[in-house]
């Protein structure tokens, strides 16, 4: 649906473009061109707005906890403030906006702290996956031959591993001691979750980048660059990489929400981040047991997880349309 919508918006954007190009005397910078196009996409703007809102909320979480609600994410409610006579948590009200969980903790504070976990895991794991995937993908597609064979078979092997089983295995192994695994490189807690998610999400990026590189390296401008005396590194990262921006952005925005959900899944299974760190996945897991009496415990983290996923997808679509200079043709 988002794609159809963005296409409609792109069409609207076309009539304004030629006049912009024709009117200016001084050449517009690439950034201005990009921004001019991105502004046209209202859905992407809404998505971006939500992401900015979420980032501000998670950054300001300690301040909100301290000055607005006066409760931290792990503070239990005092004097049965948030549980009823049967010891069950109470729903949303004036003090506890999102209600409380079974331990009587403020769900609102836990949800905005959970946004921190989700964003950190989603962005950092994706960034690592993209860095690995793009580098290996370009190298495989550019050099071809045995280099490509080696990298492609590695991708196949990683993709053929049973994802969740290995993730559970690695997280458990690395969480067994405080030192972590791989010689202390991967520490238990958040780092191991990020490591596992990055480990399983780079192959998709690498595959897409490799495929695109294979076709781009045969284009004439690569030959032109070589005839100017450009070296392999320059061709790979200055000539090929800019042409990969669109697919990389599209697939990054696709794997950010996937990775956020992956983290939620690990936390749901009780692996993931430590007990004391709020996580939407763990909240959903807790809520599942008491859904019939405490719907808010599932709805609020669930809605945030859904909106975050949707927002990243919308922004990804908008970025793709704006970054493709051919849209203006």
């Amino acid at each position, binding site marked *: 649906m988002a794609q159809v919508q963005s296409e409609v918006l792109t069409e609207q954007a076309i009539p304004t473009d030629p006049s912009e190009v024709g009117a200016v005397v001084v050449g517009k910078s690439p950034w201005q061109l990009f921004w001019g196009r991105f502004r046209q996409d209202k859905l992407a703007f809404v998505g971006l707005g939500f992401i900015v809102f979420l980032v501000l909320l998670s950054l300001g979480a300690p301040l909100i906890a301290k000055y607005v609600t006066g409760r931290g994410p792990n503070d239990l409610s005092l004097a049965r403030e948030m549980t009823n006579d049967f010891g069950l948590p109470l729903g949303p009200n004036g003090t506890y906006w999102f209600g409380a969980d079974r331990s009587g903790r403020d769900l609102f504070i836990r949800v905005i702290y959970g946004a921190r976990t989700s964003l950190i895991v989603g962005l950092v794991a994706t960034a690592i996956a993209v860095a690995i995937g793009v580098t290996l993908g370009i190298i495989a597609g550019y050099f071809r031959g045995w280099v490509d064979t080696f990298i492609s078979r590695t991708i196949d092997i990683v993709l053929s591993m049973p994802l969740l089983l290995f993730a559970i295995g690695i997280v458990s192994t690395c969480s067994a001691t405080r030192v972590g695994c791989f010689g202390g490189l991967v520490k238990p807690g958040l780092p191991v979750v990020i490591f596992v998610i990055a480990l399983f999400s780079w192959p998709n990026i690498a595959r897409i980048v490799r495929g695109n590189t294979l076709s781009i390296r045969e*284009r004439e401008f690569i030959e032109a660059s070589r*005839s100017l005396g450009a070296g392999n590194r320059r061709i790979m990262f200055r000539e090929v990489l800019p042409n990969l921006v669109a697919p990389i952005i599209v697939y990054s925005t696709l794997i950010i929400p996937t990775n956020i959900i992956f983290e939620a899944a690990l936390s749901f299974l009780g692996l993931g981040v430590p007990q004391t760190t709020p996580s939407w996945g763990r909240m959903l897991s807790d809520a599942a047991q008491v859904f019939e009496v405490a719907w808010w415990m599932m709805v609020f983290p669930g809605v945030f997880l859904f909106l975050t996923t949707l927002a990243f997808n919308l922004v990804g679509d908008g970025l793709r349309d704006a970054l493709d200079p051919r849209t203006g043709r």
Partner: protein
Amino acid sequence: MSLTSVDPASSEKRSDEPLLRVENLTKYFPIRSGILLQREVARVHAVEDVSFSIHPGETVGLVGESGCGKSTTARLVTRLLDPTSGKITFEGRDITKTSQRELRPVRRDMQIIFQDPYASLNPRQTIGQIVGAPFRIHKTEGDTKKKVQDLMERTGLNPEHYNRYPHEFSGGQRQRIGVARALALRPKLIVCDEPVSALDVSIQAQILNLLEDLQDEFNLTYLFISHDLGVVRHVSDRIAVMYLGRVVEVAGADELYENPKHPYTAALLSAVPKEHSDTSISERIVLQGDVPSPVDPPSGCSFHPRCPKARAVMGKSVQLTSEQAEGGQVSLEEAAARTAARDGDDRSVDLSQEVPENCRKEIPPLGEVQKEHFTACWYPLEEGEKLQQAAKA
């Protein structure tokens, strides 16, 4: 580095020592087959035993049909492809085996303009980045932006379009960008690989004039590749004709057009529409069949299966051409049947009756038949000889 100053050393050398000398250049592309162990099953003979030289300040044209190896030659000369064998000498230096890293300084003096102005510019880079790339790669000193804008002005582009992307330009303007990029480091030799083939006729003239103006201004040497005979005659001092990977004839531009020695050249020239041609050949020579596959080129002279002259030598008239001359049309089925018969198993048997033995067995060397006029044919045409009549005789 000033763009206007002409290096006195290079102008002194003019016409003495060739700027570029190509000797026995050969390029085979292997055809591989097999799943795990890729075995070479055949070779495409893209360029075979090509020799020519280009002197400073001159323009050498390279013509031929599609797939005759023109572009491969361009890429071999500029070392974008590695030759199978042969020798390339640029400014007296053997660059046949030089590594890409060591080639870097040579590339300053040797540039290439590509055929497709849409494919040869990176769509993700601005004009400033594209034209500025040579300066960045070779780490030249000074204000790159100023140099780029100077180049844009010289090639007829608006310097204010520095930050625009290639898709915002027309084909002709894009080719100007390609010219500006090639010109950036003020090279001595520019290989023009069909620089105007992708452009409209009106735009072609503009680009050709630009190339000529730049040649005068910067004392450039061109290797000009095209399949358009009119264009090549217009720009070239000397012309080399290629057929199936080999150079079959080399001569001065006017000499070649007025007095072709190789039957293939004569046939090629006769195919130019009359409005654009003032050659002495008035009748069209229709060659039999298609260009043979470069995977398995014919023995001896590679033109012999289609050569009307060879048949004339044997006293056999060429049915197809004589029928055409009488205005008769050959049906498609008939033509196909003839081609099939000739390309079939009994090809050699069939041809032994029609074509002289030396044409079939021995590769003719590129010999000087007149002063400055070379041709690779056992039976070169006489001056003014009409091939059509020869075929009928």
